[in-house]
């Protein structure tokens, strides 16, 4: 089985998961990569993806596994020739056994960049760092649960936070649960900003690593 890692950046950060599936499927078909198909009345390519992202979150580590006889190098070359910008494959590996990223992945690292402006970097950094220390030391961390305005307790889903500043912005690196028990990065940063007493919107969120 072949597992490849791909980006979801540029315009593609705004497409929903189901449309991303379609885009990857079409790329494989354009590349004339022979894949395993399901059986039955309406066969489709059998693809196994890493846990979905919310619209607006980019990624440099999305994963997809498929039945394919190509070598990793040949796959990358053919796939990327047919792939749109923003959905290119970054790496690939062949495994002698079935791989299912959705089942294996349980954590993810996110890079979250806040455009605070140069004037406010110092105060923002200080406030966020303090809030991060407080959250990691404590047992409680509430985040919004959805559009209906509810909240949920997310501390068990939060594994690490690191705050850094540079290049005219403050960045937060966070390791959050992913998969069956999932903490969305946009809700995490909203909760952390609230804890810090800050009010920035439009965070630039990128999933950078998946963990099993």
């Amino acid at each position, binding site marked *: 089985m072949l597992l490849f890692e791909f980006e979801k950046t*540029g*315009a*593609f950060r*705004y*497409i*929903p998961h*189901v*449309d991303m599936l*379609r*885009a990857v*499927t*079409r*790329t*494989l*078909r*354009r590349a004339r990569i022979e894949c395993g*198909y399901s059986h039955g009345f309406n*066969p*489709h*390519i059998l693809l196994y993806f890493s846990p979905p992202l919310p*619209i*607006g979150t980019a990624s440099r580590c999305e994963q997809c596994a498929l039945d394919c006889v190509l070598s990793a190098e040949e796959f990358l070359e053919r796939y990327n020739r*047919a792939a*749109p*910008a*923003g959905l290119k494959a970054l790496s690939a590996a062949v495994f002698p056994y079935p791989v299912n990223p959705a089942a294996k992945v349980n954590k993810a690292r996110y890079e979250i960049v806040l455009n605070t402006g140069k004037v406010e970097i110092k105060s923002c950094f200080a406030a966020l760092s303090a809030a991060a220390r407080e959250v990691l030391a404590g047992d409680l961390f509430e985040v919004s649960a959805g559009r209906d305005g509810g909240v949920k307790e997310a501390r068990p889903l939060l594994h690490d936070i690191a705050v850094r500043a540079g290049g005219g912005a403050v960045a937060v690196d966070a390791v959050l649960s992913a998969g069956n028990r999932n903490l969305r990065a946009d809700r995490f940063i909203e909760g952390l900003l609230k804890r810090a007493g800050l009010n920035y*919107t*439009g*965070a*630039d969120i990128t999933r950078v690593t998946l963990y099993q």
Partner: protein
Amino acid sequence: MSKSTTKHQSVYPLSRELLLSCEKPARYVGGEYNLAPVKPDAALQFLLCFPDAYEVGLSNLGVKILYDILNALPDASCEYCFAPWPDFGRVLREHQIPLYGLTSGIPARAFGMLGFSLQYELSYTTVLYMLDLAGIPFRARERGEGDPVVIAGGPCTVNPLPVADFFDLFVIGDGESAIKELAEAYIANKRAGGKKADFLRAAAKVRGVWVPDDDSGQRSAVSGQLKDEIATRHSVPLAMTQNERDSDRNCQPTTDNCPLKIKRAVEPDLDALPYPVKPVLPNIEAVHDRAVVELFRGCTRGCRFCQAGMIYRPVRERGFDRCKESAFSLIDNTGYDELSLTSLSSGDYPRIRELIADLSGALRMRHVGLTLPSLRLDSFSGDFKSGGGGLTFAPEAGTQRLRDIINKNITEEEILSACAAAFQRDNASVKLYFMLGLPFETQEDIDGIIALCSKIKRLGKRPKISVSCSVFVPKPHTPFQWCAQIGREKAEVSQRYLKAELKRLGVTFHYHDARVSEIEAVLARGDRALSGVVEAVYDAGSVLEGWTEFFNYERWTAAFAAANVQPENYGGARNLTEPLPWDFIDVGVTKAFLKREYARAEKGLTTEDCRKTCHGCGLRCKSK
């Protein structure tokens, strides 16, 4: 609209926060696969505007064809632009972001030409919505040298009068050669330092182009000079009295002999034209999102209600090998898993079975499904499917008498036989299209729909039948262009009746809002008096009216009242001898032919497929 962005400054990158505050932000960010690269230094920057949502517009074959042709010109660059959903439209207004081209983000008003595709009448308010968001004045006479030229094409242009005030010109008929000639005229004019009026003068000589006179009289000087040239070029006799010139100002001739007609553009040889085999792929799910090969244009069946069957004549087929090549190129370039062979009546393509046989094997190997969405009942023998899981047929009328009146030329035996064949091939569901309010319809014809469904139900083992009923809209350039539309109340009574009776039979019934059809009928046979109504309805807040949730009937009735326009005058019957506002458009089919067909309809006489016998519609295609 705003001036906060300079005219040529891209609006990209758009704020993530703004995008994420709206539904389906992928509609607004570009980056689609197969997008043509922008040529920023090209003399013609063309914005192809589709007055509907992204996921509707990107599927339209006509705009795909024009996009390809324009981008192939060395000195032209073409981008797409679609109507923003209202939530994003509000965002654009609040943040003073102008409507923009999808590839580059350059504001629409920086483009040299905007081309709108008018596919249906209820899109007219959306045209104004897009002009408003772009910061471009609605009326052609209000636009200056610094504003883009705004043009329109598409099927609605066979009666462009309700929106004539909003466009600098219309392209009526096939757009392939016309758009190329217009682009070349624009570029030549720009290089020569000419003004807009100079371009319009040149444009008016292009076959299929109508440059409306504006209602201020300012443009009449342009078209006055041109009339001789146009007459010579298009072989139209010219003999105008002063009275006729004055009446021609609003293109409502005082006599039936309209002295100057705009001839529809017709491409004689589709194989001589490029076909879009690298279409832009939508980022999100779109309607009819599949590879499409147009088998032929035009139709010979002569259904009397059908405007497309009249205005796209004569039939022009794409060559067999060309269809195959296009099919495989499309699959290679897109990765689609479905290919559709389309036309007005795909079963009439001469070598359709051979084409399907040639394509099927290869497509199956590549896991690509093949569909033929426009199959007539009499083309279907159960050996190919029309699309989707079930099968769709369009008997249009419930009795043979009414089917003969509309010249559908399908018997009950053929309907039942096609459904039986479908059920035998495990297609356990059938969808049937009918129309309510066809000319000379009686209660017996409505009961005929129920009786037909009852017979079909007995053909299979618990088959799923669904019926979809629209309200007939009389259209210009058809034999029924003189007919009244059924009144809204009467249509609603029939809809309620059918709903109850079909429910008893276990048949699902879908129907269109009769109020929508009423407004469509007014606009379809409208004149220039309606431009103020269209604007008023837009000002009241109506956009994207093709979507049920946004259609607002009360805004239309209020606008009619305020403008002192009687909508029933447009929806009502016309006298066979009176001149019609759209008579100045020559689609090729003569009025005399349409009158003959109307007379035959009155007598319940059918007219044979004109592939077999010529009925003298005016096109003289067999003598060429």
